[in-house]
């Protein structure tokens, strides 16, 4: 039905396939050196002339997680069916979403960002931006310039000095937690004793001689922090502080888990654990692409709870939510989801930058619905405010 147009230099299927792999890689999927070969091997096992079978086969081979799996169709269409006007509709939507989906926090000044943005809007109106990338038409230039911009912005966001301050604040907080933990450890050490049962079991391997001595100790039960940080538009001015704070928290030596949310939720623990600050910032901005419009606090918390939450939460977990509480979803839902988190976690602490304001009242409907479930609702608009939280945390 539709004929795929390829650059004249594409020699055969292998060439086109490597083009497709490059296309996927450009769109943020992790592709290894072997993947083109694997995809071709898969195609040889199915009826490759049937587009549907080819699509399903490549989907099974090339995707690695649920996120990739869901958007594979769009990427597949964009590459293999780009010439048809029929397909341009979906391709355009996808493109527009990715382009405009960059959260405002990755932009230092909105004015500077406006230009390439409007540029990308123009690109989306050309139906075959995907295919011509290889030929160096506008589509390619824009597509690569945007992530570069967002990366640079975040590096500016997290300059050395801010980071150091935030880390100090986070370390102080972590110490507040650690003090609690040290009391626990003392108790646990007292119980160290020989594990007779296991010694006996191991002695069988040694002909009945108890050579391997095993001991019993109460396992350390460290407190754990799960931090969920709102990076929506309304939080733009505070996100600098909060991202640095999260980085400090992750690096502080206590068990900590960090997530960013907006309309979607994603785990950034690994990205933040990177010792190279700039590289961590780069990874974060790559991951942040795809964030969109408003804030959906309850939806994000819901997704956290049904996914990561099952493992991340336990009776020794303190959940930190960094958000201003401006939320597009139903406040009742926020209350419900917080009630469920509360059942699984030990404490919920809401750090609200707005609370640092004079005469702040929790007027936002979401905050009113949330308050009954919070163990603490604390101000956090600057690094100083964060540092001042330490005594509060000790009380928890």
């Amino acid at each position, binding site marked *: 039905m539709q004929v795929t147009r390829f650059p004249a230099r594409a020699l055969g299927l292998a060439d086109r396939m490597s083009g497709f792999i490059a296309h996927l890689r450009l769109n943020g999927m*992790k592709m*290894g050196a072997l993947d083109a070969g*694997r995809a071709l*091997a*898969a195609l040889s*096992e*199915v*009826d490759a002339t049937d587009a*549907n*079978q080819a699509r*399903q*086969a490549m*989907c*099974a*081979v090339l*995707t*690695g*997680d*649920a996120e*990739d*799996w*869901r958007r594979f169709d769009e990427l597949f269409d964009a590459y293999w069916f780009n010439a048809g006007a029929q397909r341009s509709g979906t391709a355009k939507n996808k493109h527009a979403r990715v382009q405009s989906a960059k959260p405002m926090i990755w932009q230092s000044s909105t004015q500077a960002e406006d230009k390439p943005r409007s540029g990308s809007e123009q690109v989306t109106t050309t139906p075959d931006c995907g295919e011509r990338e290889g030929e160096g038409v506008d589509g390619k230039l824009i597509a690569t310039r945007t992530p570069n911009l967002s990366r640079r912005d975040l590096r500016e966001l997290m300059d050395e000095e801010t980071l150091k301050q935030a880390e100090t604040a986070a370390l102080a907080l972590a110490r507040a937690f650690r003090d609690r933990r040290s009391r626990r450890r003392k108790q646990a050490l007292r119980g160290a004793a020989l594990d007779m049962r296991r010694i006996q079991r191991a002695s*069988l*391997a040694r*002909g*009945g001689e108890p050579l391997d001595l095993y001991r019993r100790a109460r396992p350390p039960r460290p407190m754990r922090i799960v931090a969920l940080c709102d990076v929506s538009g309304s939080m733009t001015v505070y996100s600098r502080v909060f991202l640095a704070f999260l980085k400090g928290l992750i690096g502080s030596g206590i068990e900590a888990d960090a997530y960013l949310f907006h309309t979607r939720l994603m*785990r950034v623990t*690994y990205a933040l654990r990177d010792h190279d600050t700039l590289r961590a910032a780069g990874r974060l901005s790559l991951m942040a692409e795809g964030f969109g419009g408003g804030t959906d606090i309850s939806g994000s918390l819901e997704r956290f709870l*049904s*996914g*990561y939450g*099952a*493992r991340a939460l336990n009776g020794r977990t303190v959940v930190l939510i960094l958000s201003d509480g401006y939320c597009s979803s139903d406040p009742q*839902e926020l209350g*419900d989801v917080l009630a*469920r988190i509360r059942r699984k976690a030990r404490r919920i602490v809401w750090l609200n930058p707005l609370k640092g304001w004079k005469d702040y009242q929790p007027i936002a409907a979401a905050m009113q619905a949330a308050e009954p479930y919070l163990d603490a609702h604390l101000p956090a608009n600057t690094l100083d405010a964060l540092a001042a939280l330490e005594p509060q945390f000790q009380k928890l």
Partner: protein
Amino acid sequence: MGSDRLLPVRPDGGGSAPSEPPPGYLGPDEDRILVLTLKDVQKGLAAQGYVADDRLAMALHLAQQLGRPLLLEGPAGVGKTDVAKAVAAWRDTRLIRLQCYEGLDASHAIYEWNYQRQLLAIRASEAQGGVAEAQLFSDEFLLKRPLLEAISETKPPVLLIDEIDRADEEFEAYLLEILSDFQITIPELGTVQARVRPVVILTANGTRDLSDALRRRCLYSFLDYPSRETEQAILRARLPEIEGILARQIIGVVQALRQEDLEKKPGIAEMLDWAAALSGLGVNDLAKSREDVQATLVCLLKTAADYNAAPPEVMDRLIGKVA
């Protein structure tokens, strides 16, 4: 359990020995005696009462043809584990299941020496002048755990590694050797190479991030809650005695319940339980047997909060929609 089941390559033969495949090993292609097509997969699974959508069938097809493991993710209760059972029944082969849990280690998943028997053998042979070490570390004294068992079968079994995200990350790393080369190294015996490649199916619920290394070695498919048509086909395949109108109502209510804000959404297994309960009570029409519906909701809703979230009024509304 004769020693012919294992074909160890002894590492004492110099550097080149471990890389050579053992005699009798014809390479991973041996199990592809009959070349399957996509249609075969769908038909075969349907014959076992498992309704697979196109994507899943394709993934299973490729997993068998390419000899690569298949990673299945999705919410609880959509039939991830049942895929493996259906494949094993269809291929008429053994299903070897490894249920993962926190703290699972190599001696529970791969192999362990049977120390008691070794000791007994030593004591028993003391009168005859002792026992040779090579004898002690032979197949006879090896306790095979699921992974080694899967590798030493002669007919390709189905190896189900269930809920891999519950195991620790260290164990995941241990799996890598097995999943990419289908071989296990036992220090005392050497490397055991698979004679035939098992069909490996891993399932995960997304409670932990799996490593990229593991994902890279696997084919991937995501199982979501089934569409209305698929679910009706499943109900028809599993409980053929349920009549058309009741079947439509059951599916309608379950699908509508999944849209509600529930803590644990009812999966396919719950749907089938509920349908079986209703048909066991002789219900023909949900709208006419409201008490039975309310009483059997325990099959669908598994937490107190969910149960409270579906009072009779809500159920009336849902049933009214589908009636």
